[in-house]
């Protein structure tokens, strides 16, 4: 049992909102989003092999339900921040895929004008604050977003994603302590895919029931959630957001998920078997929602093919456009550094 710091069991405070039934059109929207993320990521894998994408590239394939289900449960005014495996969150937050491809290809039309790359997608207008590449370093930033909301008495929550590997960083623990201490409205969401790079959770974390590491330690109660189930993600995040909005402070969600691809594109995956991957693929989040929708007669095979074709065409078109876009001018290296420039600094 995890206590919330007042000696109250959180299981009574935060229950997935089973009564909230998403509408057929919402579920169809999530389905399309997940198909779009996967198609985007598969195109990225291809583009990476074609050396159109440089640096590190971490694909979200297998984890789609996490970003889609949780972001669906928060409002446009809420703040979203994540780590380097950020493509899925950016798309779920509504970013257009053309500037994402362009960013990956280092083009001027990229969402960060080619300054950020795969790990640094940002969209300030959509309250999407990155895209952060140092493991765990963005978690304190989430406390700042939460602090600003609380300070200004705004009705906002922060959705902060990170991987299980980040939970062993000092910055995670410092941030969680501050969030617990100041009762900040933050949903801390570990996308627990079982591996921090190539090291299994059991070989990295002294305690593997991750909610135990935040509950009594920082007064931030935790819940487990099935990250392969988009509807479960939605219901649990709705409950968590409501908990935060009521001024209870932060909440921690241990989201059990799995990535089908390597940690990054340059990972030979010697640390796991093909059988293990196949086992998880049987619970594929897209397949699962597809079945639910078919069972409810909202979707049929014909429609599935139609959606797939549409989305693949959309992805190809965005990729081709980005591929043809111009690179930034070399003079652009001097811009986007200072907001207030000075003297003869080239800006």
């Amino acid at each position: 049992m995890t206590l919330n710091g007042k000696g109250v069991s959180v299981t009574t405070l935060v229950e997935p909102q089973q009564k909230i039934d998403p509408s057929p059109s919402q579920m169809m929207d999530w389905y399309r989003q997940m198909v779009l993320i996967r198609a985007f990521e598969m195109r990225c894998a291809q583009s990476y092999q074609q050396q159109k994408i440089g640096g590190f590239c971490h694909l979200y394939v297998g984890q789609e339900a996490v970003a889609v289900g949780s972001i669906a449960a928060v409002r446009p005014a809420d703040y979203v921040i994540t780590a380097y495996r950020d493509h899925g969150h950016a798309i779920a937050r509504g970013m257009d895929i053309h500037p994402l491809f362009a960013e990956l290809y280092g083009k001027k039309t990229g969402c960060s004008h080619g300054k950020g790359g795969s790990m640094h997608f940002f969209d300030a207008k959509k309250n999407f604050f990155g895209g952060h590449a140092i493991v765990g370093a963005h978690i304190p930033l989430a406390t700042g977003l939460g602090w600003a909301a609380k300070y200004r008495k705004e009705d906002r929550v922060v959705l902060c994603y990170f991987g299980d590997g980040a939970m062993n960083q000092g910055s995670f623990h410092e941030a969680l302590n501050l969030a617990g201490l100041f009762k900040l409205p933050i949903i801390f969401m570990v996308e627990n895919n079982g591996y921090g790079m190539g090291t299994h959770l059991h070989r990295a974390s002294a305690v593997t029931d991750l909610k135990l590491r935040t509950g009594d330690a920082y007064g931030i109660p935790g819940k487990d959630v099935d990250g392969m189930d988009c509807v479960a993600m939605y219901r649990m995040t709705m409950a968590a957001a409501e908990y935060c909005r009521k001024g209870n402070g932060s909440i921690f969600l241990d989201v059990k998920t799995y990535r089908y691809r390597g940690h990054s594109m340059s990972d030979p995956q010697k640390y796991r078997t093909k059988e293990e991957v196949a086992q998880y693929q049987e619970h594929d989040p897209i397949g699962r929602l597809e079945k639910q929708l078919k069972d409810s007669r909202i979707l049929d095979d014909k429609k599935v093919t139609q959606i797939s074709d549409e989305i693949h065409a959309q992805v190809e078109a965005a990729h081709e456009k980005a591929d043809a876009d111009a690179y930034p001018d070399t003079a652009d290296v001097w811009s986007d550094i200072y907001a207030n420039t000075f003297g003869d600094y080239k800006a």
Partner: protein
Amino acid sequence: MPEIQMREALNQAMCEEMQRDPDVFLIGEEVAEYDGAYKVSQGMLAKFGPMRVVDAPISESGFAGLGVGAAMVGMRPIIEFMTFSFSLVAFDQVVNNAPKIRHMSGGQLKVPIVFRGISGPGQQLGATHSWTVDALYTHVPGLKVVCPTTAYDAKGLLKTAIRDDDPVIFLENESMYGLRGEVPEKEYLLPFGKADIKREGSDCTVVAWGHCCLIALAAAEKLHKEHGIEVEVIDPRTLRPLDMPAIMASVRKTGYCVTVEEGYPQCGVGAEIAAQLQENSFDYLDNSVIRVAALDVPMPYSKPLLQHVLPGVDRVADAIKKAIYFQG
């Protein structure tokens, strides 16, 4: 004009800016209920309350990151490091997050944050607590680095730092908090990137800031009295941006240059100034630029050893004499 301590000048700057702008808040260790480890934030909790003057746990990476996150959505946090030696456990937040988020977001975000506190070897605190971080942070594009020498400079520069839209490293010195100086009652701001000639002279240029500027001024006075040597002391006030045009103008007048810093010589600020001078003013130099810096060793504890390691008035005076080929 009233004479006040540098700590009061800093306090006034923060209070005025907090009155002016509700988005400004102060967070750090012991800043609120304890009234500041060095009493810089004295009385501010009573004035502004616990949401704006915030005691943080000993958790530099956490509260520095909290500040950066809040700045991303337009707040103007002032982060007090009890000493910049402790900023090193928050180094990633200060050098990776604060100055790069604007860049990596393609200019979508700005990070208007001030990190302030003491830098420099204090009172025999041993090697880990005695960092002079000037060169470390001046190295980083995206940061601005400020180093006030007087109470007047401290107030005007801190107000500018708080209003600036970029991350600012504001370096204070423990031994200078109690020094008094004239500060006008009327509001004023001092610009970044504009050096101040702290003493005019024609024989040799000395570039020094913060605590070392006071040492340089004492050495200048000594040489004036003892030998009639007229030293020009240039205080850059900010190390990034660095007012090289002012330094170059002075060197072109005197023909000689000495730099003074409490940091280390290797890749130090003096090394940078010397390099830029040889690139831009080579033909005007009548001797090589001489650097006075801490000796290239970890800061020792023992008082005579520490005094030996740090630049002092005699070492600076000797360097000036050497620079201008003074025989006497």
